[in-house]
C-alpha cells in the first residue's frame, strides 16, 4: 500500500513538474517574440510546414467526414421525417466540433510529428547548444516562429475543412440520396450563426497553440529522456509529442465546449 502511494505521489510530482516546465517553455516562446530577429523567413517556412503540406490530408479527411455525416445524418433524420435538416446537422457538427478537432489531429499527425522529430534531432546533434553558445535564444529561433505560424494556419485549415466537409455532405445527401440541393444549402445558411463561427475559430486557435507547443516542447526536451539517447530518444519524443498533443486537443475541446454551450 505504501509503495502504491509512493508511486502515485512520485508520478504526480513528476507530472506537475512537467506541466510547470511546459508552461514556462510556452510562456518564454511568447515572451521572446519582441526580441526575436529576422522572423519572417522562419515564420514562412513554418507556415509551409504546418499549412501548405497539410492541405491534402485536411481536405481529404474533411471530404470524407462530410460524406459520412451526410449519409448518417440523412438516415437518422429520415426516421423522424426531418431530412430537410441535414444541412443544419452537417454544418453545426462540422463548425462546432468535427472541423476544429479533426483538422488539429491531422495537422498534429503530419506536421507536429515532423516538428517534434526535427527539434529532437537539433537537440541530439548539439545544434541547440550551438545556438546558445552563439548568443541566439534557441526558443526564439526554433519555437516562436512555429507558434506564430500555428495561430494563422490552424484557423485557415479548419475553415477549409468545414467548407470541404459541407461539400461532402452535399455530395452524399443531395447527389447520392436525392435531397433537394436548395433545401440543403438553405439549411446550412440559416443554421450557422456568428457564435458558431467564433467557437470554431477559437477552438482552432487554442488547438493550434496547444498542440504545436506540446510537439515543440517534446522535441526540445529529447535529451531529458532517462535511459535512452540518440535516435531512440528522438523516436520516443516524437511519439510522446503526437500522443500528448492529440489527447490535449480532445481535453481542451471538452473544456471549451463546456464553457461555450
Amino acid at each position, binding site marked *: 500500500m505504501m509503495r502504491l502511494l509512493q508511486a502515485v505521489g512520485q508520478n504526480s510530482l513528476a507530472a506537475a513538474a512537467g506541466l510547470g516546465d511546459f508552461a514556462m517553455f510556452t510562456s518564454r516562446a511568447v515572451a521572446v517574440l519582441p526580441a526575436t530577429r529576422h522572423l519572417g523567413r522562419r515564420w514562412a517556412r513554418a507556415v509551409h510546414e504546418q499549412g501548405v503540406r497539410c492541405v491534402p490530408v485536411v481536405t481529404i479527411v474533411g471530404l470524407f467526414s462530410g460524406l459520412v455525416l451526410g449519409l448518417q445524418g440523412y438516415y437518422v433524420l429520415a426516421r423522424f421525417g426531418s431530412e430537410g435538416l441535414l444541412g443544419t446537422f452537417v454544418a453545426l457538427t462540422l463548425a462546432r466540433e468535427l472541423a476544429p478537432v479533426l483538422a488539429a489531429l491531422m495537422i498534429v499527425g503530419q506536421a507536429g510529428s515532423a516538428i517534434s522529430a526535427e527539434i529532437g534531432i537539433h537537440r541530439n546533434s548539439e545544434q541547440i547548444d550551438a545556438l546558445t553558445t552563439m548568443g*541566439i535564444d534557441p526558443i526564439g529561433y526554433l519555437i516562436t516562429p512555429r507558434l506564430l505560424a500555428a495561430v494563422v494556419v490552424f484557423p485557415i485549415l479548419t475553415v477549409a475543412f468545414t467548407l470541404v466537409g459541407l461539400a461532402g455532405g452535399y455530395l452524399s445527401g443531395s447527389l447520392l440520396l436525392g435531397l433537394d440541393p436548395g433545401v440543403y444549402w438553405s439549411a446550412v445558411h440559416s443554421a450557422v450563426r456568428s457564435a458558431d463561427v467564433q467557437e470554431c475559430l477559437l477552438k482552432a486557435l487554442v488547438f493550434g497553440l496547444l498542440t504545436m507547443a506540446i510537439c515543440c516542447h517534446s522535441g526540445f526536451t529529447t535529451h531529458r529522456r532517462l535511459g535512452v539517447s540518440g535516435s531512440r530518444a528522438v523516436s520516443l519524443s516524437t511519439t510522446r509529442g503526437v500522443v500528448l498533443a492529440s489527447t490535449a486537443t480532445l481535453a481542451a475541446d471538452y473544456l471549451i465546449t463546456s464553457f461555450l454551450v
Partner: protein
Amino acid sequence: MSELSPRPILEVTGLRKGFGEHLVLNSVDLAVPRGSIISVFGRSGTGKSVFLKCLAGLLAPDAGVVRFDSESFDGIRGRCSYLFQSNALFDSLTALENVALPLEQTTRLGRNEIVQAAHNALESLGLEKFADYFPAQMSGGMHKRLALARALVTRPHLVLFDEPTAGLDPPGRAAVFEMIVQYRRQFDFTGVIVTHDIPEALATSDRVALLDEGQIRFAGTPSEFAASDDCIVRSFGESNVAIRENAGN
C-alpha cells in the same frame, strides 16, 4: 608560441559538477592567459567535455566561479565561440547561411555587410567555392573548417574547441591544429582545446593541462609537462620529440 599577457582572460576557481551521485569535476582551478592556446588532456570519461560545457554555460556548475576578463559570467555568449565535436552545423542551411547565422541573429549589421563578412570568413578557411553547398554535400574536413568559420565570424575573444580532431585521419588532425594556430594569429583569439591528440597539442599549444579524477593534476608549458616527475603526467607525455620541437621553437 605567442607573447602571452600576464593577466588571464579566463579564470576558473573551485569548479564542481556532478550528475546524481557521480562527481565529475571536483574543485577544478585553471587560469588561461590572454592570447594563449591551452590544451586540456585526460582519460576518456574524466569530464573534459563537461568542463568545457561548464565554461560555455551549457551546464550549470554545482559550485565554483568562472571569470571572463575578471567578470563573473553565466556563459560565453557573444564574446566567445564553441567548436563542437559534432560541428553542430544546420543541415537545412547552406555554408554561407551557417556562417552568417550568428551575425544575422546577434548584430545590427545590414544584409550586405553580413553576407560580405560570411564570404570573407569562408574565404579565410578556403571554402569560398562552397558557399552555396549544404553540409551534407561537404566532407568531414570541410565541416570542421565550416564550423571554425562560423565560430570565428563574430571575432570572438575566446574559442573553446571540443575534440576538434575527432574522426579525422592523422594528416587531417595535424591540419586542424595548424589551422587553429594560423587563425589564432589572424583572428587573435585565446583557445581552449579539449583533445586526445597529445603529440599535436604539445607541438602547437602554449600551455597544457591534465585533468585527472575531477581535478587539474598538471598545468604548465609543454616543456614543463615533459619534465614532470608525476607518474600520471609521464604516462601522457609519450611524445617527447614533439615536446622537444615545441620547446626549441
